[in-house]
């Protein structure tokens, strides 16, 4: 059985890896076809564009940081067998409430930067966890679809955030819809020059470690995995099959809140979200690529951040639009999520293994 288990793991890995490679290859081909200028330039921009200078790499890291947190959160929701997409709305909503505290109270004034950032991230995480209880309650207590409700709620949260922004926080001195500039002791600072690579990376690192511990070393993490793998078995084992997924969704909401904090207070000088950010959906994709395992989240987050940055670079340097590259996302999901991809070859290898074992036993 040892060999079979190894084959099983190998194909699990191959499925993700080949899925990424194929998606990448297809996209490169399309980039070549679509580019009106030099084909080589287009491909180079796409492939190594994000690494050619500090600014672009900073851009990549700016995306990477919230992806790590959002991806970790989704690991819990997804492991519990739930599909709440509420993270998307939390990205808009948690920071605007934090902005109310920032601009309308004196709580944060005069405190040191590190303490303020801690408070702000914690506040966003708490708001995220609370917001996530709504679809969780609907699912666990009322038995309705958390996915449908969370998608609807995302739009409610977007417009609620915009209302708060316009009603209480709008900076009338500029032409865009945004708050005033964040005070200097209430935002993440850039680690490399003036790039987007900011100190939120520390939050991402701490968040990742917390996710690893929660997921692998605690009773609740183990309960979440068990309920997600087989709810009836969990029930039979004496696990509260309502509480565990409920808590999983709250943990997901808290991580989404933290992702919102590092994005809103790390990349921008003021709160200026006027649409959904897509970070929530990207977080889902990160978790899918990482096969629900927090350990693989940083790699998955980096891959996605790289693809997204490539798209932007390409958009700026050639005639190829961002949306064009974003279709790669669809191809990745297609391969990574498709259980049947490579299943025939896997079957063949296992068949051959069993044959060999048979012959060995005979000789």
């Amino acid at each position, binding site marked *: 059985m040892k*060999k079979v288990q190894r084959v099983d793991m190998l194909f699990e890995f191959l499925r993700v890896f080949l899925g990424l490679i194929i998606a990448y290859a297809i996209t490169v081909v399309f980039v070549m076809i679509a580019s009106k200028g030099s084909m080589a330039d287009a491909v180079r921009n796409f492939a190594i564009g994000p690494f050619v200078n500090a600014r672009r790499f900073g851009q990549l890291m700016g995306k990477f940081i919230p992806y790590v947190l959002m991806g970790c959160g989704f690991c819990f929701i997804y492991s519990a067998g739930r599909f709440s997409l509420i993270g998307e709305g939390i990205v808009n909503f948690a920071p605007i409430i934090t902005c109310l505290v920032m601009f309308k109270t004196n709580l944060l004034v005069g405190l040191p930067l590190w303490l303020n950032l801690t408070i702000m991230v914690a506040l966003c995480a708490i708001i995220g966890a609370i917001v996530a209880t709504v679809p969780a309650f609907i699912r666990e207590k009322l038995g309705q679809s958390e996915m449908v409700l969370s998608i609807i709620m995302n739009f409610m949260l977007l417009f609620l955030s915009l209302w708060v922004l316009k009603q209480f926080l709008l900076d009338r001195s500029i032409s865009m819809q945004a708050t005033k500039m964040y005070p200097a002791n209430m935002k993440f600072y850039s680690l490399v020059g003036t790039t987007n690579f900011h100190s939120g990376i520390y939050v991402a690192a701490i968040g990742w470690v917390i996710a690893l511990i929660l997921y692998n070393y605690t009773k609740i993490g*183990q309960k979440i995995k068990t309920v997600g793998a087989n709810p009836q078995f969990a029930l039979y084992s004496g696990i509260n099959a309502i509480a565990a997924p409920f808590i999983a969704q709250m943990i997901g909401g808290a991580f989404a809140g933290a992702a919102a904090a590092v994005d809103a207070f790390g990349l921008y000088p003021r709160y200026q979200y006027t649409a959904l950010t897509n970070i929530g959906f990207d977080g889902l994709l990160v978790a899918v690529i990482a096969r629900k395992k927090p350990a693989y989240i940083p790699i998955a987050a980096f891959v996605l951040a790289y693809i997204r940055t490539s798209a932007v670079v390409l958009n700026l340097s050639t005639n190829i639009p961002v949306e064009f590259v974003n279709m790669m996302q669809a191809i990745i999901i297609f391969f990574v999520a498709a259980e049947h991809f490579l299943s025939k070859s896997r079957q063949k290898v*296992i068949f051959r293994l069993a044959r060999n074992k048979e012959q060995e036993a005979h000789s």
Partner: protein
Amino acid sequence: MSKELLRMENITKIYSNGFMANKDVSLTVHEGEIHALLGENGAGKTTLMKILFGLEDYQEGRILIRGEEVRIANPLDAIAKGVGMVHQHFMLMEGLTVAENIVLGIEPGKAGVFDKETAVKMTLEAAEKYNLPVVPNALVRDISVGVKQKVELLKALIRGVRLLVLDEPTAVLTPQETRELFVQLRDLRSRGYGIIFISHKLDEVMEICDNVTVLRRGRVVGTGRIADLDEKKLSSMIVGREVVKTVDREAPRRGDLVLEVRNLSYVDDIGKIHVNDLTFAVHAGEVVGIAGIEGNGQTELSEVITGLRPATKGDVMINGQSIKGRNIDQIRKLGVAHISEDRLVYGCAPDLSVWDNIASIYLSSKKFARGPFLSKRELNKFVDECIEEFEIATESRNTPVRLLSGGNIQKVIVAREFTSGANLIVANQPTRGIDVGTASLIHKLLYKYTREKNVAVLLISSDLNELLNHSDRLLVMRKGRFNAHFTDLSRVTDELLGEYMLGVRSMTEEEMGNVL
């Protein structure tokens, strides 16, 4: 010799977990022949029949029907080619009538409107033609197991199949119903139908079959005419050794009251009474068996005791404490372990590892925990000990359970439940569908735990041999009530049990004596 109906040649099937279920298996069935397919659980009989019925694919070999090579893609295809199957667990719609079930998929009617009258007529005609009397307008939910089987047979016959596969058709029948079935099967044989008869009961095979093929560990180990064989030869072919049936058992030393059930009733959502005012008890150190035809409330009883279903009336006391108002975790903590009959639904999480599957019952307890954290090192050690003590054939504790064989999956479940520290083990069909080695290990454990560790065991099974050989007392359940109570099992026979299970006989309360 009559015409050849089916020939399967050198079939090899390997499951996706690398398990070789069939290896170079060949099988031939002629018209007007009842062919027995024998073998222990896990020998590959069911897999072979699933291949024939298009439910599983195969890697090597070929199938010929009436001399023509075919590739059977799915059950519809199989039926079109004249192969019908009656599964061990009936595939009927409980909420529909007999006639509706029989014409399912070939409904008569015009423009998409179902013509019920014609359906009833078709059913009656077929029932008469094949001498299988059924009531077309009865709901399947309300008819007996024996009649359900007739419905299954009619369902296949009305679609024009010529070869019938019967997977353990007598497992759920009483001896009386079995005799009736045999009359019908002989009738079909005389009409030129081919029948593949899968069974564990050698006397039945000797009685009704013409030829036999025996499988062991996925291979054909013997084939021949029944007339040339006897039960002893057959059984040694099946297990590869002579069967020893009797086990030496010391009389139990009955200890304290562990499980006490008082006037317990369970009524489901649609008002059907599954458990009807039952009172009984199990003491420390004894195995109390519950016999009964499946579906007479045994499963519901075990699930009420273990907390999976709420009691409608009455009470269950475990070690002196009521389970009322307690959840499954709290009931487990009162000292209950549960081996569920549905091993892949309740018993384990197939995608999780052996470790995860054993750890699952400790996630709300203080054992193996430091505050909110799991003490992985202690758990690792514990799981490794379980793997060793219960002889679980697994590469490591991190191997997903789905990669193990059925017997080893059951060992994981048994290991978890037996080591939980409980003093009441509710074992529902603990050895169904698993190999003899594991079954005898489980039987030995049940014995050891009751005699040495003073554990109380409630053993629910449809395997009468298991019950007769491994219980200290035996209750027979019928329609949610007890119908018989035996304290001396040495004088109880299969036949006698069958009569009580069917309700031909029934004990009075005085005859049953003290069930506490």
